[in-house]
């Protein structure tokens, strides 16, 4: 069915596309789930919708109440879209070093944006949102890093969709941000088939944490801790901006225009495919490339673009 009563009904049920021609191993098939096709442009629409609807159900979010979140952009876009539709005012703390498209997109949906210092990264934005939540107890803070509705959206949505489309999956490779996707999908797939391996990729902390004064200011999302992520994952790899951008460019060969974090996921897929003998690797593209056009990911000199990306948040 392609007719919907609401744009919110179009969140999820994204296509899973065979991109095995990018596999470095002929005995390993690769499929990519295109989450950039969600209406807010990213996988985060799923968590945004689940968090809001869960809060409406349990009464913690009332009509007209202000929603508060911190986000490097994608969760903010999902929340902004849904908040606009449902009539909730929305305030979001966004690090200054996200691409200009992200803040413009948020303004399109009427979000109030509070910038946070670039040097503090996503964690600094989160701390500021936590402080704001304390000052404004009448606001509803969705707190994506600790909200169980975030992984649940993937346990009940993304995971079953992958299983339905690709029951032969042997490996799931995805980025680690809030950990919602990998915890929800990983747990679902392993419950269906305990042999499925879950590999995470993450960007280097790098410049994102210059403002960190001690290790204690570091942060592991409660979503990851509560779901015992350390036991769930089988491997975790750090992928730098240069390799991520190279893979984002290569994805154009199979007609996929995706963001830098998708390139990072592909770098993880390539490593996985070359280390295993045979199998079926499923990965997830968190968003499309649109929000990164201003950063010249596809058109600029690779070294220059990679250097710039070291100072931008793209996860």
């Amino acid at each position, binding site marked *: 069915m392609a007719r919907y009563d609401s744009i919110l009904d179009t969140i999820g049920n994204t296509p899973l596309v065979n991109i095995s021609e990018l596999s470095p191993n002929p005995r390993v098939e690769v499929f990519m789930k295109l989450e950039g096709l969600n209406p807010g442009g990213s996988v985060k629409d799923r968590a945004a919708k689940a968090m809001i609807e869960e809060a409406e159900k349990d009464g913690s979010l009332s009509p007209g109440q202000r929603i508060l979140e911190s986000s490097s952009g994608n969760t903010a876009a999902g929340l902004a879209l849904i908040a606009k539709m449902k009539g909730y005012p929305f305030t979001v703390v966004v690090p200054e070093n996200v691409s200009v498209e992200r803040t413009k997109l948020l303004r399109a949906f009427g979000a109030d944006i509070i910038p946070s210092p670039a040097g503090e990264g996503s*964690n600094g934005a989160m701390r500021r949102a936590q402080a704001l939540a304390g000052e404004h107890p009448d606001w509803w803070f969705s707190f*994506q890093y600790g909200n169980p509705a975030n992984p649940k959206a993937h346990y009940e949505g993304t995971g079953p969709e992958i299983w339905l489309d690709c029951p032969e999956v042997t490996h799931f490779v995805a980025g680690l941000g809030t950990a919602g996707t990998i915890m929800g999908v990983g747990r679902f797939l392993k419950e269906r088939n305990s042999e499925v391996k879950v590999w995470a990729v993450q960007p280097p902390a790098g410049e994102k*944490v210059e403002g960190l004064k001690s290790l204690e*200011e*570091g942060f*592991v999302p409660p979503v990851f801790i509560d779901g015992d992520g350390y036991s769930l994952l089988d491997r975790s790899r750090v992928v730098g901006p240069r390799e991520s951008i190279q893979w984002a460019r290569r994805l154009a060969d199979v007609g996929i225009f995706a963001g830098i974090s998708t390139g990072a996921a592909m770098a993880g897929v390539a490593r996985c495919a070359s280390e295993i003998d045979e199998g079926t690797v499923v990965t997830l593209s968190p968003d499309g490339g649109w929000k990164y056009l201003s950063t010249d990911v596809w058109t600029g000199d690779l070294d220059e673009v990679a250097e710039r990306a070291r100072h931008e948040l793209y996860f």
Partner: protein
Amino acid sequence: MVTRQVGFLGSATDEGVAVVVDVRLPNVLRPLVGGEAVVTAGGETLREVFDDLASRYPGLGPSLRTPEGEIHRHLNVFLNDDDVRYLGRLDAKVGASDTVTLMPAVAGG
């Protein structure tokens, strides 16, 4: 690199079995090693590398491991680019051309 006669490196080089790795540190830990971004350390497992680091830079030790001897929960340790939590943790074997990278745990989203 193996000419540095300190700690583990000193005794092990005498036996000719030292594995020396580069250890890359984030900004937040550099003051604990005299401001260096990269230091070398010796050992055949990550545990031995951490022991060597802790003996040469006593201030760094508590940032690497908890009093119980586990990797600090806000520290991610990568052997080349692989998180050691999935490579046997402190028992992960290190090789001569390996790089150990220490990073604070941070989230995206």
